[in-house]
């Protein structure tokens, strides 16, 4: 099949050449002659996932291996990734973002219209949608969902999307209006964020009790698959919803999520065919799988794409002893921010941070620790945002000699000849912490330690339990440097990470403050003009990549292994489960698992 697909792509590339008409004539003539001669019938050349629509057949089972038990299957309370993946199959949004992460495809909404003043969006809803219990989906469900999403007692994690929405109301059973306080570029994204939940089920439950409600383990949605059962720590089973609004879909009969916390065991189950789909395939296994797949020796497709996670070094820009004193003095009151910003003895200088960055061979680290499955990162804008522009970043080369010069300019020299730089009796020695249980970061830490040692800087690696690192050390600024990572949201904002107003909060733990950043990021977030938005994000990228509150390291690729019997699969940076309702399995490659429930 793979060889066929290659031949097919060669044919396609020929079509693009300038001699199309002539080739067509020859081909048609040849086909007529072949047909007339009763030539042997040849299978159509098709690429995996691009089968002709009328070949699509229903039935079959998808078995997904997940590493942990989901916390809840309620869109308002779930936080874990497995839970969110399962929820995406049971529930639906008004619209889903497209691969460009800018435009949207209608889902529960048929269409939407912006008002003349651009402060209202009117959504016209589908009228053919049913909940899994047979009740009709109506506009009141959308209004109810918004009410709960913004209820402070619910503590929905996407609440920031809704902060500019003033009012949501139903004009009739199939029309909902979202009114905004001000014009912002993300109005549509804000409005459609979050899955719609059933009013008739959850109306009686107090928002305070939503976290303990039975709905969390027995959800009723309106997506292509309905919930069947959940065996604690073992599996979650979904079944095709026959009254799904997109007629003829989904094609698969059921999806089983098998909970297998041991990564080695899970990978083994993928290889043996017991599990069809696994995310986060360990890089070594993924590379071997790719080689086998290319050689036609495996029927598991290796799929990689830009994910949503990057790692960086965060430098503590302020003096943490001074921070404790100022915070203690302020007690319950508001501390004086300017007093908090007393520079850190080591990392307070931009030139020192630049020197440390130049001393670290980020390209090699990216390659080694990720086995080539990551992209280098130089600035704050994630690679999947549409405003990403590599040229906007100030990229420092790997230059240990230059780093030494920079440090010497700042007064750091090895005055006592012990191999470690010092200044005013203080040695350039510090701790860099990371969370335990992350092999990639632990390996990175060792490489950085070695590279910094080359320029006379002593870095002591500290591997700490995540609860201690994120729960105590970072919020209290009690650290020197830290190697951690962020998950990337689709909404473009960096306020909580770098804005001056976030300086007292946990996420701006490096205590970065810049009036330029504050102003530019505000403009970038609010501008309705695409060019202006891009320009200001570039300014932000340029400023932060110069100031270096972080030394950005690498942006991870996601690695997925999927059994090749599934067709019409689309997987991209939005995730793995974006079009499962389109997946189908040809009858000739079905397995015992696909026949589940057919007895």
């Amino acid at each position, binding site marked *: 099949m793979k060889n066929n697909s290659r031949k097919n792509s060669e044919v396609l590339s020929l079509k693009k050449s300038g001699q199309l008409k002539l080739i067509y004539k020859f081909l048609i003539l040849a086909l007529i002659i072949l047909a007339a001669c009763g030539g042997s019938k040849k299978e159509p050349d098709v690429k995996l996932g691009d089968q002709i629509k009328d070949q699509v057949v229903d039935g079959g089972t998808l078995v997904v291996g997940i590493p942990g038990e989901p916390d809840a299957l309620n869109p308002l309370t779930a936080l874990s990734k497995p839970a969110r993946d399962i929820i995406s199959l049971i529930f639906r949004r008004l619209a889903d973002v497209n691969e460009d992460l800018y435009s949207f495809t209608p889902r529960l909404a048929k269409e939407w219209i912006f008002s003349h003043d651009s402060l209202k969006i009117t959504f016209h809803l589908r009228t053919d949608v049913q909940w899994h219990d047979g009740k009709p989906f109506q506009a009141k469900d959308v209004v109810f969902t918004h009410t709960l999403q913004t209820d402070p*007692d619910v503590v929905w994690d996407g609440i920031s999307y809704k902060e500019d929405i003033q009012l949501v109301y139903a004009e009739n059973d199939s029309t909902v209006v979202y009114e905004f306080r001000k014009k912002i570029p993300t109005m549509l994204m804000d409005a459609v964020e979050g899955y719609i939940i059933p009013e008739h089920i959850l109306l009686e439950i107090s928002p305070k009790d939503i976290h303990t409600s039975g709905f969390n383990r027995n959800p009723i949605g309106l997506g292509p698959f309905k919930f069947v059962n959940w065996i604690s720590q073992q599996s979650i089973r979904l079944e095709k919803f026959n009254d799904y609004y997109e007629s003829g879909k989904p094609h698969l009969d059921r999806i089983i999520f098998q909970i297998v916390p041991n990564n*080695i065991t899970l990978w083994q189950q993928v290889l043996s065919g017991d599990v069809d789909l696994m995310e986060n395939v360990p890089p070594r296994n993924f590379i071997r799988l790719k080689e086998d797949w290319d050689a036609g020796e495996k029927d598991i497709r290796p799929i990689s794409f830009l994910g949503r996670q990057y790692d960086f070094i965060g430098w503590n820009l302020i003096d943490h002893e001074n921070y404790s004193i100022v915070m203690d003095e302020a007690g319950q009151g508001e501390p004086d921010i300017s007093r908090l910003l007393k520079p850190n003895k080591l990392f307070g200088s931009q030139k020192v941070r630049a020197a440390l960055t130049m001393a670290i061979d980020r390209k090699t680290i990216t390659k080694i620790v990720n086995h080539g499955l990551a992209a280098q990162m130089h600035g704050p804008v994630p690679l999947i945002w549409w405003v990403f522009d590599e040229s906007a970043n100030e990229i420092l080369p790997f230059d240990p000699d230059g780093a030494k010069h920079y440090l010497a300019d700042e007064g750091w020299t090895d005055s006592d000849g012990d191999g470690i730089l010092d200044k005013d009796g203080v040695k350039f020695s510090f701790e860099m912490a990371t969370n335990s249980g992350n092999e990639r970061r632990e390996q990175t830490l060792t490489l950085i330690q070695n590279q910094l040692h080359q320029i006379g800087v002593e870095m002591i690696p500290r591997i700490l339990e995540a609860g201690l690192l994120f729960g105590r050390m970072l919020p209290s600024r009690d650290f020197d440097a830290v190697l951690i990572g962020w998950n990337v949201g689709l909404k473009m904002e960096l306020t909580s990470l770098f804005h001056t107003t976030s300086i007292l909060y946990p996420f701006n733990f490096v205590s970065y403050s810049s009036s330029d950043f504050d102003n530019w990021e505000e403009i970038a977030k609010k501008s309705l003009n695409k060019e202006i938005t891009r320009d200001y994000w570039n300014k932000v990228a340029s400023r932060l990549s110069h100031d270096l509150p972080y030394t950005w390291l690498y942006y991870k690729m996601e690695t997925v292994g999927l059994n090749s019997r599934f067709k019409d699969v689309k997987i991209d940076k939005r995730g793995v489960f974006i079009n499962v309702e389109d997946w189908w399995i040809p009858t000739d490659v079905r397995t015992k698992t696909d026949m589940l429930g057919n007895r």
Partner: protein
Amino acid sequence: MVAYILRRLLGILPVLLIGLTFTFFIIHLAPGDPTTRFMDPSMDPALKEKIAERFGLNDPLHFQYFLWLKQVIFHFDFGNSFNSGRSASVIVFDALIPTILVTGLSLLFGLILGVLGGIFSAINHGNRVDKIITSVMLFFFSMPAFWLGMMLLGLFSIKLDWLPSSQLTSIFHDQLNIFGRISDYAKHLILPVLALGLSSTATFGRFIRSSMIEAMGSDYVTAAEARGISRGRIIIHYGFRNALIPLVTLIGFTIPVLFSGAVVIEVIFSLPGMGRVMVNAVLGRDYPVILAASTCAFLSVLAGNLLADIFYGIVDPRIQVYREVK
């Protein structure tokens, strides 16, 4: 005897209370914040307070303790999991059944094989058979259960693909008849029970062997032999019966060891059970679940000791006589 059991049961309560009180304060004072996992860079930091309030974490610690104790004593309610919102008691109860299954079967396997091996080794004391059995037992005695588990997993599941590598049942379980279901359970439990049971086999076997050798060399066995009593009867009635008394104590102590071993084995074989519940709860600072699971762990230790004491009284009439005389 009933009075003795009641007295012992009452004695358990203060031990349990002290243990749980320590656990409560240790986990609350340990670094880490249960609200951290709910926070996202895009969230309003004020929501952190709201979450802490929902979990009752804003109250003074002693107040949280007494409130929690009251709920536990009067309602056996450990609160709801911070992570999933489910009742912590229900989560632990769900997980307890597979753990008891693995622990119980491992104990049974270890006991049967250990006792047979020990007796066989003792009656062949000093010869080649004894040496082979003793060496094999020493090997398994020195192997940690988790290492053995990984080796068995690698060989029988990954290399040979004879037995399933994870879960308690297959996805076809619901479609099987009763015999099929039992066989399905058995296939999934063989490796974890072997991994856990083989270590205890060695413990029991070595113990029985030395007790039996001691008993077989005693005067009453010599007297029995002089009276012409058959060899088999001497082994069972004189040797084994006397070796059984200290074994009962050992079983009592082995139950909590197996329980904690099962916790590790569950993680290796991806079995549902207390192991995964505890690991996840500790990593996520899920206080209600940690406390509910700790209660189970404490109870397993105390129950093991209590059962040992009770059976000790049953198998050794001298103890009862002594109590009655006293």
